């Protein structure tokens, strides 16, 4: 390890290392030190890039702020009655400040407008750049001809406000890394082929043909979908089913590529080529689902599509109209057209979305929900059904002991100490249930994946291993009995489900586990609707069908495993617990940073409020334009009015968005057993319609 630095504001630790550590080791070390640690991103370079852009915008913002403040002071002097040469002097100084400031701070807009125009498209930055450049150009001309209308203040202030919006927007940008790349660590690189004479040779995975005989060693990943022809072994099929319990496979059973072979050597026959196998299929599903996500166009972009041509049309009409009215006075006409462009510049519009999203994101962050994508809030507001995975999502993946064999006090301590040495969920459950009271000297501690853990203690050998229906406790090879477990339901899962119901959101469980296990959990958390034994493919098709038909664009997927990855990406919006696999976390829009699920209904509630605020902001911008545009076209807009109108509308929009930080979410109670008198003050019909 090279360095580790904790950023206490962002609540992040950045660890630089020589490539010899992986994220899980680091998180486990931190957990061992009693910190709740989850991995957020490992693509540091992508983040640095985003960080660099944010800094560039912040510098531009600082320069624009400096320019705007100074020019505004000079403008106030000019407006308060300065005349003749003094006014010209003020204009000249303003111009001297404004031109370099615009050249520096305007670059983000000019670049974006230029790249849009060079592919023959328009975006919001085209009218912005046009307005700023024309306004500055016109003002320079006015200054040198000693005319009264200089718009330096408006142009620079416009940049200042827009840069605020742009900077906040940059902070919200998706730190998304494609989920597909993180799958590659589950792929085997080469395989061992068994030749006809019984000898073996190593071959690349790509060379495996259907019908080939392969040897799978313990600890290796299955290279292609195959069928066991000899041997038995325990395998970890978590990526297929989402269950972390090892499974025993025998002759005739089928293994998917990417499955981890734990205990025994197996001889298998390849059934599919590598690019037709399970892992490749998951990859393809993820890819397709991620591409499909682009279908949702954010509110701001939709507004820009209508706004840009409309503004240009109005300004052009104003110019032509004034040419007729004034009998060809092009200076006057151009001035009116420019003031129209300035006043319609989407200042409030540029702030409407990012300000609301930033405030919402910081509240979500305080509730323990990290937003990876600003647009996800808009989608979260529209959800009408929440699809939950079971293991690792509704349950914590931890196990609680429900039954324990009788032990003497020293034995209790010894087994507690032994269990504490393992990170297996069953062992952790036992360690928590027994609770070590005195120090115990253990030697020769050995753990074998899929079998158990053993050690020497006080002259005897003690072991924890797999039993019939739980974990067997042994002393010198003699069984003392078995510890039995139940799955631990996540903290406040029932309240979260109840809260979602209050918000008019249905819930359903989609699990790879057995019927019995799913029914148990569904009863505990209060979800009536469930589907068990779902393959990743089933999950995707279920989610896609829901999204396309019954709940158009309103499906939330909450899941953690690799098997949930494609459906997380396919759902309209998705949440993954912080304990989720890399694939799950990268495919999801939100990551829960706390073990509890209660943030989910709060987040949905906040997303809806945020959407309302954004729409109100658009409304404010619209009303502003309805008043300002006719004034501008009629030629009544002086530099003073332009400056007032612009800052006024922006401040109203920011103030309106700030209301978000004071709204309190209703208190959510479990779906079952809550009587009407404790119903939160929420209007259910409005929520359902939202």
């Amino acid at each position, binding site marked *: 390890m090279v360095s580790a630095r*904790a*950023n*206490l*504001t*962002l609540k992040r630790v950045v660890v630089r290392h020589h490539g010899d550590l992986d994220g899980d080791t680091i998180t486990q070390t931190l957990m061992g030190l009693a910190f709740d640690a989850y991995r957020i991103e490992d693509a540091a370079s992508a983040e640095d890039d985003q960080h660099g852009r944010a*800094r560039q915008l*912040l*510098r531009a913002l*600082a*320069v624009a702020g*400096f320019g705007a*403040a*100074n020019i505004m*002071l*000079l403008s106030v002097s000019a407006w308060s009655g300065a005349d003749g040469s*003094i006014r010209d*002097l003020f204009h000249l*100084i303003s111009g001297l*400040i404004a031109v370099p400031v615009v050249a520096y701070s305007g670059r983000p807009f000019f670049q974006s407008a230029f790249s849009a125009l060079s592919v023959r498209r328009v975006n919001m930055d085209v009218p912005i750049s046009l307005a700023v450049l024309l306004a500055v150009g016109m003002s320079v001309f006015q200054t040198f001809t000693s005319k009264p209308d200089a718009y330096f203040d408006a142009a620079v202030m416009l940049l200042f406000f827009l840069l605020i919006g742009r900077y906040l927007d940059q902070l919200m940008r998706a730190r998304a890394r494609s989920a597909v790349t993180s799958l590659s660590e589950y792929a085997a690189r080469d395989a061992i082929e068994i030749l006809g004479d019984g000898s073996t040779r190593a071959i690349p995975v790509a060379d495996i043909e259907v019908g080939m005989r392969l040897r799978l060693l313990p600890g290796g990943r299955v290279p292609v979908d195959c069928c066991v022809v000899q041997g038995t072994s325990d395998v970890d099929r978590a990526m297929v089913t989402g269950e972390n319990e090892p499974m025993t496979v025998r002759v005739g059973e089928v293994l998917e590529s990417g499955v981890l072979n734990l205990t025994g050597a197996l001889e298998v026959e390849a059934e599919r080529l590598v690019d037709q196998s399970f892992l490749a299929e998951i990859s393809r599903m993820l890819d397709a689902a991620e591409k499909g996500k682009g279908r949702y166009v954010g509110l701001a972009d939709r507004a820009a599509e209508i706004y840009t041509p409309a503004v240009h049309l109005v300004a052009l009409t104003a110019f032509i109209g004034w040419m007729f009215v004034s009998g060809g006075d092009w200076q006057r006409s151009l001035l009116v057209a420019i003031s129209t462009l300035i006043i319609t510049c989407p200042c409030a519009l540029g702030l409407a979305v990012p300000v609301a999203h930033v405030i919402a994101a910081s509240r979500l962050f305080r509730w323990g929900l990290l937003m990876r994508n600003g647009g996800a809030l808009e989608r979260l507001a529209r959800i009408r059904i929440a699809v939950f995975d079971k293991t690792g999502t509704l349950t914590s993946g931890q196990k609680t002991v429900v039954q324990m064999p009788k032990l003497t006090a020293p034995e209790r301590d010894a087994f507690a100490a032994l269990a504490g040495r393992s990170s297996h969920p069953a062992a952790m459950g036992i360690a928590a249930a027994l609770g070590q009271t005195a120090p115990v000297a253990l030697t020769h501690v050995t753990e074998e994946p899929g079998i158990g853990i053993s050690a020497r203690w006080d002259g005897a050998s003690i072991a924890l291993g797999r039993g019939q229906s739980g974990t067997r406790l042994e002393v010198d090879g003699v069984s003392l009995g078995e510890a039995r477990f139940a799955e631990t339901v996540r903290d406040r899962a029932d309240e979260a489900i109840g809260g979602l119901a209050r918000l008019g959101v249905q819930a359903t469980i989609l699990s790879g586990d057995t019927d019995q296990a799913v029914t148990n959990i569904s009863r505990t958390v209060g979800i009536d609707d469930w589907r068990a034994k779902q393959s990743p493919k089933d999950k995707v098709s279920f989610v896609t069908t829901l999204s396309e038909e019954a709940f158009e664009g309103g499906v939330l997927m909450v899941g953690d495993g690799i098997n949930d990855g494609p459906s997380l990406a396919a759902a309209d919006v998705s949440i993954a617990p912080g304990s989720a696999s890399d694939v799950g976390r990268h495919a999801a829009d939100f990551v829960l940073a706390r073990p509890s699920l209660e943030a989910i209904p709060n987040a949905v509630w906040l997303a809806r409020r945020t959407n309302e605020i954004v729409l109100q902001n658009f409304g404010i911008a619209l009303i502003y334009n309805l008043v300002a545009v006719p004034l501008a076209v009629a030629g009544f807009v002086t530099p003073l009015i332009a400056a007032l109108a612009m800052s006024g509308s922006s401040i109203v929009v920011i103030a309106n968005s700030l209301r978000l930080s004071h709204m309190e979410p209703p208190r959510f109670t479990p779906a079952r057993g809550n009587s009407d008198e404790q119903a939160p003050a929420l209007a259910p019909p409005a929520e359902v319609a939202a």
Partner: protein
Amino acid sequence: MTQLLFLIPVALFLGGLGLCAFLWCIRTGQFDDPDGAAERILHDD
């Protein structure tokens, strides 16, 4: 009038000084972790 010729450059210079200070703060990463310094003093390591 002559006061203006004197005062405006002074005002701009002071404003510019503030701007430079801010840009320097960004460059040296002083806004990256505003809460850290306050809490770090409480840690032993």
